[in-house]
């Protein structure tokens, strides 16, 4: 290849080359976490000391890891269910009904997203401190539902907005009642949006550190565990859990994509 053609090729593909580099950057820490989950590093997993499967065979091997993980999963599931139900109801009210106070409603949904986490965390803590509410498992759930609702509303609203209203009109024309139309037509069409919103709510909850740290009392969660052990070295088992969560999420997304591709034939 002459220099000229090389330069032409580079010019034509500059953006693609850039994208490859950008993705390498995006995935570098994920690759690091995955590689070091196989490190025979003992308690502090900083230097590579050789390959082992022990961490994957016994992810609960390090003290506290699985208690923290269990709490995070429980909190994640409970807060996801609550936030998804509450947020979906709000999304339907906003898109399918007329009512007074729409502006105020939209504002109350927008504001938590425009407020930094540390402010949400501090504000909620002062509420609990003033009312003498002990912090623990349920105060974490309360906090996670609070910051997830807005994201669920936005995600479900976006899905409802893409619906073709003629489908619902057709159902009504075919003598379906309002409830039947909702159950057999509207809801199944919105369901993928609700599923996506739930996945978002779960990952927000599972990953949250700041708000949890302020309102958790003595209850440990996975991010809290990582933060606290950062000072003396994070055990490799934590990397196993991080990598496993990543690959599980990828599988869920892939299955979702396959299902979608099957349901909606191309063309």
């Amino acid at each position, binding site marked *: 290849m002459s220099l000229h053609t090389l330069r032409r090729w580079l010019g034509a593909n500059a953006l693609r080359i850039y994208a490859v580099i950008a993705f390498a950057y995006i995935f570098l820490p994920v690759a690091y976490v995955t590689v070091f989950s196989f490190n025979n590093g003992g308690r502090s997993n900083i230097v590579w000391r050789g390959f082992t499967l022990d961490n994957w065979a016994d992810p609960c091997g390090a003290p506290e890891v699985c208690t923290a993980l269990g709490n995070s999963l429980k909190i994640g599931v409970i807060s996801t269910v609550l936030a998804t139900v509450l947020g979906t109801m709000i999304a339907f009210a906003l898109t399918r009904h007329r009512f007074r106070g729409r502006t105020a409603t939209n504002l109350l949904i927008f504001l938590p997203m*425009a407020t930094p*986490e540390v402010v949400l965390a501090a504000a909620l803590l002062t*509420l609990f401190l003033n009312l003498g509410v002990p912090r623990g498992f349920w105060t974490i759930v309360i906090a996670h539902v609070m910051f997830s*609702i807005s994201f669920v509303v936005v995600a479900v609203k976006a899905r409802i907005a893409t619906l073709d209203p003629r489908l619902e009109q057709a159902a009504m024309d075919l003598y379906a009642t309002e409830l039947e139309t909702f159950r057999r037509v509207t809801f199944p069409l919105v369901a993928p949006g609700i599923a996506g919103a739930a996945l978002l709510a779960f990952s927000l909850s599972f990953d949250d550190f*700041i708000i949890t740290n302020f309102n958790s009392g003595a209850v440990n969660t996975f991010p809290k565990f990582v933060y606290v052990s950062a000072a003396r070295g994070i055990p490799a088992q934590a990397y196993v859990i991080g990598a496993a*969560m990543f690959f599980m999420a990828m599988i869920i997304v892939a299955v979702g994509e396959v299902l979608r591709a099957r349901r909606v034939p191309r063309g």
Partner: protein
Amino acid sequence: MVHVPIPTAEHPPAPAPSPRGRRWTPYMLLTPGMLWLAVFFGLPLVFVFLTSLYVPAPSGLAGEYVPAMRWANYSEAFVEYLPQFGRSFLYAGIATVLAFLIAYPLAYAIAFKTGRWRNLLLILVVAPFFTSFLLRTMAWRQILADEGFVVPVLKALNILPEGMALTASPVAVVAGLTYNFLPFMTLPLYASIERIDPRLLEAGADLYGNSFTVLRKVTLPLSLPGIVSGTLLTFIPAAGDYINAQLLGNRSTTVLGQVIDSRFFRIVDYPAASALSFILMITILVLVLVYIRRAGTEDLV
């Protein structure tokens, strides 16, 4: 024939009129969720404001405060923590600019250059989110550490002088912020770039615009809504974040979040912590409103 408008993301269908007797349905749908937000988001804001004016209890016990209206709490906290306050916004501002510079070409490439791989690549942009935020930040700490592989390479290439470290520095904090909030920038940018009609770009080129002129005169203005929401979605969480400063910084990179955390939990100085939280919230709200107005009145349209 009845004309039925086809709804799109920009033009959602008008809400269907509620049938008779269903006037209460929207309120029943709204009440549980809005009540949750009112009690656990709205009410706490009232409490954080009230607490910011409290004074120490006469008992003198640490952590005991009584209601008062001491406005000096604000000026004292603000003056004492001005450097941390400034750093929070400086780091967040630099990280937002860097994230924009990295994300814009990436979003453009995904929108126009990747064809049927688009959806997959979009998922890959958010994929790192599924490993823990803290683990990713720790990973950067170790990648950039002296015993990692970046520092020896940079030193061998004489880019980094001997004796200099990448971790525990403002550079590392900003790099961590940039990395962690990159998807918040990329997705909105993609959403608005993807909507641009490629024929407009061709037209720009046909009218003798070189690629830079087309970018400046056509692409950037058309993607402005994405730029506005992307920068906001990056700047707001970055300004409040303190995990990056804590894990990647040193003692002279302390940001406001760390002060609020330690005021609450180590010094149990609730009024100062509340005052700082309130100042942070108001500052960000004002900045956001000014920014939206400027973007809206001068460049949008």
